[in-house]
């Protein structure tokens, strides 16, 4: 599941930036309001390096504080290129690797000549060759880290149960949550008979989404779940699990539902079939939109401080941001819950037996 999201992230990343690069290139930063808007947009995007903050030093140079991340590019002409993103110097210089030149232009990597020239078409889109970008970006790094963290914590906890019946330490905090997922999400929605085979996925997705949402609220500026590619891959896993574990009864209810007059069956079947795709689609949009909306509102409120520029701005902005952060803490858990809950509901409909009605 994780592997799948990496590739999706890296590739989607391209498309998103293409649109964005266009918008940014057309509108130059003119006023404070635009600057804040640009900052928010920048925050919402994935990036090739892990930047904490940047400032101007006494010599007037911009200093970036952060860590470079590996860039992995592939195109048919120059093959595989792997180098550190520090070579881009945040888009200021051209990166050279094995005689190939690459330039980071508005968050997107293009192949260029040694001077880093980028040519445009009539719509101000860059026409340079765009290599496939499989880079370990900021989002991918944190997906890795959260995956590793979960693996370590939960394997340790599972090992502990072999000798003790009581969890120890941090496991005491996690046990009620795991039991909650089992007893209040999985069993009521899927049923006693089938819930076991879905538990591993439900627990994984619940903790993954929750941890990642919580990390998005920390000031390090990562936001994995407000990348639609991540939520798309999560939703796709739910979709595939539903589709491939579905029993005869599930398909019967889609194509030839019992108790419905025959002419209506022809009318309803396409709608029901479309419904199977709309369900994971709404899962994707819901998680993505909720987290993105939260981030935008939170950052706009912080931006108010710079717009007001008087004694009222700071306390107001601080108070609102504090209240909203608390709300976002709730939303982080709630969205993880809803995602798991609805996944369980779809699994439940897939394995429902005829006599379960």
């Amino acid at each position: 599941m994780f592997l799948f999201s990496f590739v999706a992230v890296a590739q989607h990343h391209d498309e998103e930036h293409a649109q964005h690069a266009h918008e940014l290139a057309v509108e130059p930063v003119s006023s404070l309001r635009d600057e804040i808007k640009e900052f928010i947009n920048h925050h919402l995007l994935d990036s090739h390096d892990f930047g904490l903050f940047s400032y101007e030093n006494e010599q007037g140079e911009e200093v970036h504080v952060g860590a470079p991340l590996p860039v992995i590019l592939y195109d048919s002409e120059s093959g595989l290129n792997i180098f550190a993103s520090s070579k881009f110097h945040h888009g200021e210089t051209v990166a050279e690797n094995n005689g190939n030149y690459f330039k980071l232009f508005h968050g997107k990597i293009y192949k260029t000549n040694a001077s880093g020239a980028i040519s445009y078409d009539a719509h101000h889109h860059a026409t340079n060759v765009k290599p496939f970008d499989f880079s370990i970006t900021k989002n991918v790094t944190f997906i890795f880290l959260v995956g590793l963290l979960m693996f370590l914590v939960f394997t340790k906890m599972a090992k502990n149960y072999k000798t003790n019946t009581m969890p120890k330490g941090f496991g005491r905090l996690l046990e009620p949550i795991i039991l909650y997922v089992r007893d209040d999400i999985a069993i009521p929605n899927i049923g006693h008979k089938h819930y076991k085979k879905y538990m591993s996925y439900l627990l994984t997705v619940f903790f993954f989404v929750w941890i990642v949402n919580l990390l998005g609220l920390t000031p390090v500026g990562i936001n994995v779940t407000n990348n639609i590619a991540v939520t798309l891959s999560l939703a796709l896993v739910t979709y595939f699990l539903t589709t491939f574990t579905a029993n005869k009864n599930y398909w019967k209810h889609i194509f030839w539902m019992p108790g419905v007059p025959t002419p209506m069956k022809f009318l309803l079947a396409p709608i029901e079939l479309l419904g199977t795709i709309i369900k994971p689609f709404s899962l994707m949009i819901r998680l993505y939109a909720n987290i993105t909306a939260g981030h935008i509102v939170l950052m706009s409120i912080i931006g108010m401080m710079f717009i007001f520029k008087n004694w009222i701005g700071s306390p107001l902005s601080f108070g609102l941001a504090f209240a909203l952060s608390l709300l976002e803490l709730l939303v982080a858990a709630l969205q993880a819950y809803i995602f798991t809950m609805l996944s369980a509901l779809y699994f439940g409909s897939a394995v429902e037996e005829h006599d379960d009605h």
Partner: protein
Amino acid sequence: MEGLNYIGAGLIVIGAGLGIGRIGGSAMDAIARQPEASGKIQTAMLIAAALIEGIGFAALFAA
């Protein structure tokens, strides 16, 4: 005609707000009548609210 986008977005928010408000209100009534079923009511409420929210967001993206 760009302004119509914003009017549409406003209408969506009003609709979704009314819908979720009704769900919340009805759930409150239900919990008041049967406090022992509050867990089940809460779950059903959250699912219904999430579905409305999903449609709301989908429409917002279209707007």
